[in-house]
């Protein structure tokens, strides 16, 4: 990983954010709602509306409004919420921290579950364990998050009363309670990821197991455990990292739905509230922050890839 590569990668992230900002701003500009009416209500006098339009710069041409918005973003100013009259940035970043907790835990669960599952299926190819894990992964990929979440709610929270149904408790407040509230959301988000990634690990492991260098490692008398851990695992994991990075996109989508269902005050829920109340600055900020998170996650995955596989040289 050379400095030049890192710089180029950074440029790509910046270009991504620029395109995303144009897409987000362009789309939200098309919103049929008049921001001044949203702010003051239907009964506002024409003079008051005109004053607000002037203050918000709504009479300016679109490119100028875009420029004001973008230069605000660059200074870290995400604008003021039309709904609460509070600065959007701090609200969104606090929400993002909760979503990152949910997302990070889901990725951790996914890694712990998907890699052993996929390798087991590959080693027991065609046997019962393989068939069962394939079935589970098909089901996992085919269940939308809102279905998984409601089914889990019915069974775990409602019928057996094992866990609280909805709500969020900060870990700093009460760790045990916080974890109990997070189990169902994390299970929901990670199911689809486990399903997808374990299938990927399975097919990669099968490829690696059939390769010449594994046969060589076995023939030279290495214990199976060493062959598995040192040779198979490492080579099967490489393509998996790319998939994990791409899956962050699903993860973000899943988080939107799961936060809505389990009433977790994260960025997804903020975004849905913003969309239903047509709070433009919040929609724009939420979308930008989510896309930025995705771009950064992808870059980190590329760097991890290069660190694990020394053959890859980015220059």
């Amino acid at each position: 990983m050379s400095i030049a590569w890192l710089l180029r990668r950074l440029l790509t992230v910046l270009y991504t954010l620029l395109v995303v900002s144009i897409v987000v701003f362009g789309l939200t500009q098309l919103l049929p709602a008049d921001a001044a009416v949203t702010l003051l209500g239907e009964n506002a006098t024409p003079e008051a509306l005109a004053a607000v339009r002037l203050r918000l710069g709504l009479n300016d041409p679109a490119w100028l409004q875009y420029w004001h918005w973008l230069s605000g973003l660059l200074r870290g100013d995400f604008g003021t919420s039309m709904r609460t009259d509070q600065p959007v940035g701090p609200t969104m970043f606090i929400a993002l921290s909760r979503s990152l907790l949910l997302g990070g835990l889901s990725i951790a669960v996914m890694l712990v579950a998907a890699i052993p599952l996929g390798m087991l299926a590959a080693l027991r190819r065609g046997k019962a364990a393989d068939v069962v894990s394939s079935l589970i992964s098909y089901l996992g990929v085919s269940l939308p998050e809102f279905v998984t979440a409601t089914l889990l709610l019915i069974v775990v929270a409602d019928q057996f009363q094992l866990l609280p149904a909805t709500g969020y408790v900060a870990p700093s407040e009460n760790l045990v309670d916080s974890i109990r509230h997070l189990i169902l959301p994390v299970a929901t988000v990670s199911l689809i990821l486990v399903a997808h990634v374990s299938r990927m690990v399975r097919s990669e492991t099968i490829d690696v197991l059939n390769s010449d260098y594994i046969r060589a490692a076995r023939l030279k008398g290495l214990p199976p455990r060493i062959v598995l851990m040192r040779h198979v695992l490492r080579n099967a994991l490489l393509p998996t990292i790319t998939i994990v990075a791409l899956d962050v996109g699903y993860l973000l989508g899943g988080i939107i739905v799961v936060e809505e269902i389990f009433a977790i005050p994260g960025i997804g829920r903020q975004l849905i509230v913003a969309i239903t109340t047509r709070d433009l600055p919040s929609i724009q900020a939420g979308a930008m922050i989510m896309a930025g998170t995705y771009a950064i996650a992808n870059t980190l995955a590329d760097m991890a890839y290069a660190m694990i596989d020394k053959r890859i040289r980015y220059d």
Partner: protein
Amino acid sequence: MTDTLRRLMHTPQGVLGCALLVGLVLACLFGGAAAPYQPEAMDFAGRFAAPGIKHWLGADQLGRDVLSRLLVGARSTIPLAVAATFSGAAAGACVGTLSAYLGGWWDEAITRTIDAVMAVPHLLLALILVSTLGKGSLNAAFAIAISVVPSMARVTRSVALAVRQQEYIKAAIARGESGSWIVLREMLPNVAAPVIIEATIRVAFAVMLFATLSFLGLGAQPPASEWGLMVSEARRFMHQAPWVIVAPSLAIAATAICFNLLGDGLRDALNPRDER
């Protein structure tokens, strides 16, 4: 094509996927006629009736027959998702092929832009689009079609790059054919097969996305019996009557499984060397 179909029927995924597909198509075509009740017929005495002889899958909070609503709802769920995916895939295929044909600086710019747009998660893009266009089934389908375009463009481009190197493309350029002729008549037909496979897998996502939008109140509107909307409406009553929520959930899952199986089966059928 018949060869591919024959091979598809030799894979277990293909057989199961085709069987499910036949069931879904039948439900879309004859669901309305086969439904035992009117989907919107209310029966207040029969609210939350458990599954039994009268209502095979039970009745909902207004006493409406769940089975009838499912059968009728197939038509407002599946065709729109399929149409949205394939129109989005067609548009994406055009962009991807064009990018590969132009090459050089244009190709770089288009690819980078596609990558950038893909940084917006599908659901987020669809949510913003629907909030712009207004809620409703057609707008939701349009939003799904748009969100399919970038990823399909990327898939198509990688196939089209190989096609671009073929002799017949060079011949067409040498003949002095126009760019649009080469893209539309020479390249597109030759990238169609892989694009169709990818699109088939994406139908599963589209069905799930469409149901999710309806679930969030932005897609189909009541009293439609779209499946995602049925789940959303039944949520408040899941303590009293879990069957009202389980039936449409399973229907969505079955549809998504069907297209996942078909897509995987088609992929295996086209790559016979790949024995996974």
